[in-house]
């Protein structure tokens, strides 16, 4: 090269810097502001006990939302997770009551989720049907499966130790919170430190380019639904253990709570953009909001209206961001 090689620096205007901060840290700032606000106006909000309450309350949604994040990163969606929570919980409790060892019964919950996820993923990836429709179908038939296993709620009979998953604690920290932290730690490694993680972002960002880069796009697509099924199955286990029973009506609407957490956390519905810890913060944000509103004595219908508004706001932000 006979000309001097210059590396151009990235000049940012004030506006761009503000945008950058807003995009990267907006959700963290929002959570912080909300916590400060609630600490000021809601009685008994700002305490370790209430903090753990919130963490425990959001743990199930957070676990579902972690798998959902991986799906949404590929520009997909999984509406079947709520029904998986019911089916896996009922299956586990029935097996427990039938005398199956605790560990195996617990694993079956995850297996049920994985199986539904595999069916979803295989159809979406290899038959190229839209994820929305396929998982909407799964939402319905999986609820049907839950009902077919048992007509109504079924209590855990006897002592199996499985209750400790939802109710136990270690050093004052509830088990579900431990599980949640482990799951997010695991997904952080999966997405940031493995080949599969890079492939997920690539497939979500540009499936055509992904294929030409030697990525097995269909396999990646199928895998993300299996992952989402597994986390939903785990959430089903946590739920059943928490309420000491299998509930065929468990998890109704959970898919929407999970999607809300993912979108709030900054993952784009259009795929290819998002971070796993954003989702955790998104789930916590919803938890803090609900908890604060309850402490403030806000009626349930007002709570619903506020939550609905938050969902639309989150999607509006995502859309504006993608248009930039």
């Amino acid at each position, binding site marked *: *090269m*006979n*000309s001097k*090689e*210059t*590396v*151009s*620096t*990235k000049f940012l205007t004030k506006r761009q810097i503000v945008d950058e901060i807003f995009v990267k840290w907006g959700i963290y700032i929002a959570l912080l502001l909300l916590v400060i606000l609630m600490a000021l106006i809601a009685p008994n909000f700002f305490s370790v006990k209430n903090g753990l309450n919130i963490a425990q309350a959001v743990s199930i949604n957070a676990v579902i939302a972690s798998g959902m994040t991986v799906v949404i990163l590929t520009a997909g969606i999984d509406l079947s997770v709520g029904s998986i929570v019911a089916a896996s919980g009922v299956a586990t409790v029935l097996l427990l009551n039938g005398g199956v060892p605790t560990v195996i019964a617990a694993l079956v919950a995850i297996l049920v989720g994985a199986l539904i996820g595999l069916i979803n993923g295989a159809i979406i990836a290899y038959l190229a049907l839209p994820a929305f429709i396929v998982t909407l179908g799964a939402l319905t038939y999986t609820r049907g499966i839950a009902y077919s296993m048992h007509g109504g709620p079924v209590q855990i009979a006897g002592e199996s130790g499985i209750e400790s998953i939802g109710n136990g604690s270690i050093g004052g920290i509830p088990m579900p919170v431990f599980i949640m932290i482990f799951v997010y730690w695991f997904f952080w*490694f999966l997405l940031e*430190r*493995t*080949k599969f993680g*890079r*492939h997920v*972002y*690539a497939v979500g*960002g*540009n499936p*055509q*380019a*992904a*294929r*030409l*880069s*030697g*990525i*097995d796009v269909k396999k990646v697509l199928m895998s993300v639904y299996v992952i989402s099924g597994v986390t939903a199955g785990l959430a089903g286990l946590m739920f059943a253990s928490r309420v000491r029973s299998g509930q065929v009506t468990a998890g109704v609407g959970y898919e929407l709570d999970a999607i809300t957490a993912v979108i709030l956390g900054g993952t784009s519905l259009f795929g*290819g*953009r998002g971070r796993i810890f954003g989702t955790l913060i998104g789930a916590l944000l919803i938890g803090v909001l609900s908890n604060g509103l309850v402490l403030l004595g806000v009626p349930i219908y007002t709570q619903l209206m506020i939550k609905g508004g938050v969902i639309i706001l989150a999607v509006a932000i995502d859309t504006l961001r993608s248009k930039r």
Partner: protein
Amino acid sequence: MTVAENLALGNEPKTKWGFLDRKKIYNEAIEKIARVRAPIDPSELMGNLSVGTQQILEIARAISMNAQILILDEPTAALSSFESNLLFELIEEIRESGAGLIYISHRMEEVWNLADRVTVFRDGQLVATSKKNQLTPDQVIKQMIGRDVKDLYVRNNRIIGDVVLKVENLGNGLKIGPVNLEVRAGEVLGLYGLIGAGRTEITRLIYGADKIATGSMHIAGNLVKFKSPRDAIVQGIAFVPEDRKIQGLFELMTLSDNIIIASLARFVRLGFLALRNIAKAVDTQFTNLSIRASSVEQIVGELSGGNQQKVLLARGLQTNPKVLILDEPTRGVDIGSKNEIYKIIDSLTKSGTAVLMVSSDLPEVLGMSDRILVIRDGVVVKELLAEEANEENVILYSSGLASV
């Protein structure tokens, strides 16, 4: 929406009841289309038209607004030569009507034919503005690349080795094939043909991106079969596609991710990515290809076309290919980066890489190739050595005017 509705957008005529006046929309559209002299039906759906026709309609809309200044940014990028000529006629008319035009293009001859004054930018900075009649094309190119034009193309004495890729009777069972070709180590084989001749399709078949119906391929004497691009990469073929944005880049991902994405498997240790090794490999590519970016962590969508192209080149090279397939390696790339890409291609031949270069840029094909295969109707119609090829005979063979 239909063509007529699009043309009326933002300025819809209403009936006295406040409803859309469809008849008037339609009639106005006929007038507007007549002004651009394009044979387009106003009731056609916009989505059914070619990108070129859509572009012409955009211009029709701009004209109908009676703008004083019209800015055209790479207007011919998606146009056929017929449509381009139509555009140039329109530009003349607009100029005569007294409006000012800013015409942005990377195509020298267009700027040269149209402009009264020429402004050159390089690396985001103004180099010079001059009256055209005080300039020669060579001076403009010199301003653009910052050095003399005579060494735009780079072909230092190449040492050509054994056959690396041998393709026999390759076809897709439809319009492509049977194709026979050989690429040798250290050689640039140019594939030239008119648009629609099947150049890209042939390379996609070789790369395993599309389904092969007939034929066989050998790499270094071994029979290979690719079910997908992944197999091709494993066997030592890299492919840089023609459409960066649609087929190449992950625009939301970093430069580093984009470069390494096709060769991640080599960087896995105990299930995890060896980030330090990746950083090292990416840095090497970043420096060797002199990619201009703030860092390897910059988002690729923010880079210029030339640097994006280099990123794709780096991705291909990172897989250590024996054969590098380049489809339109310098399309939409500024002339400075073009020169750098040519240097990279030439230096690859030094290390024994076989390069298969598809291009519709004839000077590029002539300037870079050691051999040229002319493609027409999905088959190779003529092989020309660099010494015997010139613009005239390549065009004659590619258009079918010369018998083989």
